């Protein structure tokens, strides 16, 4: 066991853990940030997606030691002063979930997409989001939510 300095949601955390444990487990079990979900442990479902220096990343395949020095954003870090980001707001408006278990990963993947491509086409959304699984099958609503968020961000709302 060793100490690792993580930058999560704009704050510094000294995390005691194992170098090779996953960032997913460190976030969930050592920092109690349980919004990031375990779905498969092999980078196939996207439930564990976080932003690492702004890039959508599978936290289940990222080791704790390799996350040191990176700016990590989890679902808990999006809301500021009770104001939701346009992507969160759009998921609410479109009702783009059923059980909601995939939602944090979906929102973070979509956030990364919109920061890179402010007005994605359907094809670009599908390509970018294809690593995120929604077993309840709300994909059409998620695509609608991403378009809605893109429109809101275009009017100045901060992603």
């Amino acid at each position, binding site marked *: 066991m060793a100490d690792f300095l993580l930058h999560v949601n704009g704050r510094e955390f000294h995390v005691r853990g194992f170098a090779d*444990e996953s960032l997913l*487990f460190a976030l969930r079990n050592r920092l*109690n940030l349980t919004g990031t979900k375990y779905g498969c442990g092999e980078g196939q479902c996207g439930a564990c997606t976080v932003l690492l220096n702004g890039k959508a990343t599978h936290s289940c395949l990222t080791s704790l030691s390799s996350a040191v020095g990176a700016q990590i954003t989890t679902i808990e870090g999006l809301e500021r002063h009770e104001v939701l980001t346009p992507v969160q707001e759009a998921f609410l408006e479109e009702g783009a979930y059923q059980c909601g*278990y995939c939602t944090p990963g979906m929102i973070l993947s979509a956030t990364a997409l919109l920061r890179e491509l402010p007005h994605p086409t359907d094809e670009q959304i599908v390509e970018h989001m294809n690593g995120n699984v929604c077993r309840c099958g709300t994909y*059409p609503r998620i695509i609608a939510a991403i378009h809605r968020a893109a429109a809101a961000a275009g009017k100045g709302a901060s992603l």
Partner: protein
Amino acid sequence: MNAFDELMNEARQQQTDPPARGFRLDRREFLKTLGGGLLVCLGPVGEFAQESGRRWQEHELPTELSAWIHIGADGQVKVFTGKVEVGQNIRTSLAQLVAEELRTPFDSIAMVMGDTDLTPWDMGTFGSRTTPTMGPQLRNMASAARDVLVKTAAARWNAEASTLTAADGKVTNPHTRESLTYGELTRGEELVENVPNDPPLTPAADWKIAGTPMRKVNGRDFVTGKHRYPSDIVRPEMLFGKVLRPQGFHASLTSVDTAEAEKVPTAKIVRDGDFIGVVADDLHSAEQALAAIHANWTVPPQSSNAELFATLKKGSTSEESRPEFASGSVPQAYAASDVKLDQHYTVQYIAHTPLEPRAAVAEWSGDKLTVWTGTQRPFAVRDELCEAFHLPAKQVRVIQPDMGSGYGGKHTGEAAVEAARLAKAAGKPVKVIWTREEEFTWAYFRPAAYIEVRSGTRRDGTMASWEFHNYNSGSAAIQTLYNVPNQLIQFHSSDSPLRQGSYRSLAAAANHFAREVHMSEIAFALGLDSLQFRLKNLTDPRLRAVFEAAADKFRWGRSRPEEEHGFGVAGGFDKGDYVAACVEVEVTPEKKIKLVRVVEAWECGAIVNPDGLRNQVMGACVQAIGGAMFEAIQFKDGRILNPHLAEYRVPRFSDIPEIEVVLIDRKDLPSSGAGETGLVALAPAISNAVFSATGVRLRSMPMAPPRAIPGDEPPRFQS
């Protein structure tokens, strides 16, 4: 069938354990814990009351399907029900129904669900039964509560109750313009009211809160990550547990060496016969210790996909089967028919793959056990725990936080029992979360199916005989709604090589696949349009209506845009729901089936929440794509060969066509549940569309698996 028999029939198909005696809180005591107010309890009603005392599988059945409504001094309404929220959105839709009948704002309702200490006994959340059974009960109770509130106000004002109105959480006297909020009326009171019989309910045509689109009630908690799923529960001093899995099904442990595992810091090995588990301070250490256990197992030889359908076709060695339905004389009518078809259809095992795997946190406090877990049947899981630890029901509490879905796959309490076992040994709370591989291997599967259909039809398109045999997958929606005078319909149980259980829509998906593909085969043999052939043999107005609505929106009957495009139609009925789908596919020169467009028309009586319903029907279409096109469990010698998402393909963004859902709102009819039947029409409609594009008839699900499945024909198409 009366309501009681229906429920029992449903329970049998769900392969649930029998219900145990429901224990009841003393209602006066319960009301005191809530700080007084008004508590409305549902008394025995209707057919269930008459059935009280009936026994099933050695258990006394509960005499009531219960729920409680409490109105506190702050006007807040708490609804207590043993139903659980798994993504189907009943936390919202049930609250709409209560708000409607109670005449109170929607946001004054809080649902307390799936907690065996707080809510009345409930058999479980399955079979699309919440809306048709719990819905009317809550409406009854809310209506009775409103009546009590109005009478209480009338007594205070010395007014005639019939002259008062209830609206927006208050009772008002229109003459004096006095009003009292519900909170003011219940303050300081300790009212317990039983609902005696069916009070008048607000007709759906007059609904103002029910019947309107309502977003998920606590949606904000889901987009911010605040909601705590079962796997997110944390308790003080909690340890993490793992369980050693055998190397195959029906394996026995021959030797085990835990010396190396015991050296992992903080890890402790728990051994109880063939059960070997690990607890540690953190999950990483628990995983390390588990991996360090060296165990040898003897796995007996077992069958594989290659022998699956021959095995199923043999039928059960222990259970006899009888026809579900028989009329006329099938052999004679078949012999006299102009067009005779004799075909079989197969369906592979598939996995529910809920994104949140089984999870539980167990905590012992003396001899009292509390378990937070994801289950569709918290009271059945409580019974499992009582049995496992020889405890009376009152010493076990199961709490079900809204979970990461189930689709029929979380009826059982494996993780709960494991966590409780480890927690007992460790003397501290323990969390167990199954890995995806464990979920793919040690949960249960949707039953595989072998289905034979023999039909006889006259040259004019009139159906004469229909023989239908389902081996193994079940009897749900096994009957045909088409008019056929001579029928023999039978479900044959088989000795399933894999552990199987309920799955969203049960066997209705397999039975509709066989029936609706076969219907199009008959139409083709006769040279008739497959929609017209169906309508010619169909009088049920509700099923006709969804076929016509789907065809209208799809513009059925127009010519195909390109040679490689095909159209298909299918429809059916189950659990009070009527559904029809029209599908357009494109089959590329590389033989890839691309879904282009789906129109699904749907009718389930009066719609409670159009937004939630649309989401359910759309989601069912998407989920159906998996079983139709590519999902299949591959197994051999007691092992699952593809227990990972990398090898078991589920529908993704790139698989989704344009999907339009057409809802028919029948406000004149009771609401039925919509969680399942949306799944059943898609696969046969896709098969029929592929035939229209290519002339190739696909009779096996999945229709375009990523790799060959032993025992199935090699895949002719990709997806």
